[in-house]
């Protein structure tokens, strides 16, 4: 009985923290972007503009939720829910601290990769169901982008798996007790980072939405909370991605003095800020450049990384 209550508490806690972080990121992103563009950002509502989050949430909940008559209604409604469900499910396998994990699966890493693939459906279906040429173009691009970056996203992590000898995320964290994997697996980290950026279609790799050319891409026809779901899905996406990078490459909860959960949250926060810094600094590549970069550079590099890691591990024993 006690066990059940404890797991329910963990599930509720993870859900609560994840959704609150996603909402808080609205404010954090705007403040940080302003910081790097010599501005101040939202600082009027509440202390440091923190209540801006509340104002944004109220606004998005009370907006008209309009389904265009030409859209494929059931798919149109389901699409935004898919991304939220997929991303929230990937939170289930992330070990925040020893014992604080919803489901410590022995195939945790594969589960995460599967869920991030499921998230692609949301974008593609939204683009298709909107029945709008810009949305369709956005959906099309995202299908190509996400599928091609998925290939080496998995491959780049195999080095980590080989070194840890397990797909279980808590084992991977424990294996980094001596040395964080970001040093021996630096190439894997860079490749996974870029692939993750493409998977969460954040700027600079936000080709599916590309405001300048595709209006808003796949969510051009969405409004109100349905649009909000994509928005929250994107923020949850970077949160889960940062948490994964911390788990796989930066030693998860490991760290001196401070309690493990604090270390984990601190590292995740720094990575999220880095994602926002990338948004502030880099321009969006052209579509064909993105494809060429993925297939001609990243894929061979991740294969090399895989082969070298395997060879070294075999040689060392």
């Amino acid at each position, binding site marked *: 009985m006690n066990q059940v209550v404890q797991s329910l508490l963990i599930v509720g806690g993870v859900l609560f923290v994840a959704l609150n972080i996603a909402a808080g990121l609205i404010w954090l992103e705007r403040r940080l972007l302003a*910081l790097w563009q*010599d*501005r101040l950002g939202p600082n009027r509502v509440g202390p440091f503009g923190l209540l801006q989050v509340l104002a944004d949430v109220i606004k998005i909940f009370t907006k008209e939720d309009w389904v265009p008559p030409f859209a494929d209604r059931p798919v149109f409604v389901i699409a935004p829910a898919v991304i939220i469900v997929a991303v929230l499910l990937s939170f289930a396998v992330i070990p925040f601290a020893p014992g604080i994990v919803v489901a410590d699966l022995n195939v945790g890493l594969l589960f995460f990769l599967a869920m991030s693939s499921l998230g692609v459906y949301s974008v593609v279906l939204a683009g298709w169901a909107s029945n709008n040429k810009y949305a369709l173009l956005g959906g099309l691009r995202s299908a190509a982008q996400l599928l091609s970056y998925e290939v080496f996203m998995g491959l780049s992590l195999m080095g980590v798996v080989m070194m840890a000898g397990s797909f279980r995320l808590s084992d991977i964290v424990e294996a980094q007790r001596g040395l964080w994997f970001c040093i021996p697996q630096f190439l894997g980290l860079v490749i996974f980072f870029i692939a993750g950026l493409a998977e969460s279609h954040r700027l600079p790799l936000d080709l599916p939405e590309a405001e300048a050319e595709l209006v808003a891409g796949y969510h051009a026809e969405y409004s109100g909370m349905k649009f909000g779901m994509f928005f929250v899905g994107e923020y949850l996406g970077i949160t889960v991605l940062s948490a994964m990078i911390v788990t796989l490459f930066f030693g998860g909860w490991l760290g001196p003095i401070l309690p493990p959960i604090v270390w984990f949250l601190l590292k995740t926060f720094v990575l999220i800020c880095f994602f926002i810094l990338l948004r502030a600094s*880099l321009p969006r590549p052209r579509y064909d450049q993105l494809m060429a970069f993925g297939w001609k550079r990243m894929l061979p590099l991740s294969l090399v990384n895989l082969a070298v890691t395997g060879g070294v591990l075999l040689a060392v024993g």
Partner: protein
Amino acid sequence: MLSVLDTIWTVFLHMFRKRETVQYPEEKPYLPPRYRGRIILSRDPDGEERCVACYLCAAACPVDCISLQATETEDGRRYPEFFRINFSRCIFCGFCEEACPTYAIQLTPDFEMGDYQRQNLVYEKEDLLISGPGKYPDYNFYRVAGLAIRGKGKGEGENEMPPVDVYDLVP
């Protein structure tokens, strides 16, 4: 690749730069003296209205937001009976100021005229008239113009010659 890292680093360093934002209601922006804001009607150094109700401003106004009616005092000075500017139409182009022959109508560095009711944006003469001469402190139209009013005949203005009787020149 290196240039990408350089870009990221440069943007990161912008964190420590001075902010460009002017926090408006608390901190006012600098407006130059010739800024084109709220329109006023000025008075000459003697405290009389400068406006001679010539209608040139109303004619120059591209959005027809100025409306006035000319009348005359017993002295022979023209002045507007009413002078009305509808600021909900005004585009602050400054053409009225350029058209004005007596420097009466002037634009000022003030833009804080927001209101909740359109009717409140229609300014009457009392709202437009100020007590001073505005941007041209020493200018007095009637002192330099050749027009005869009570207390000043023809040719008695500044830099003016007495009028010539052209029939004197007939041979």
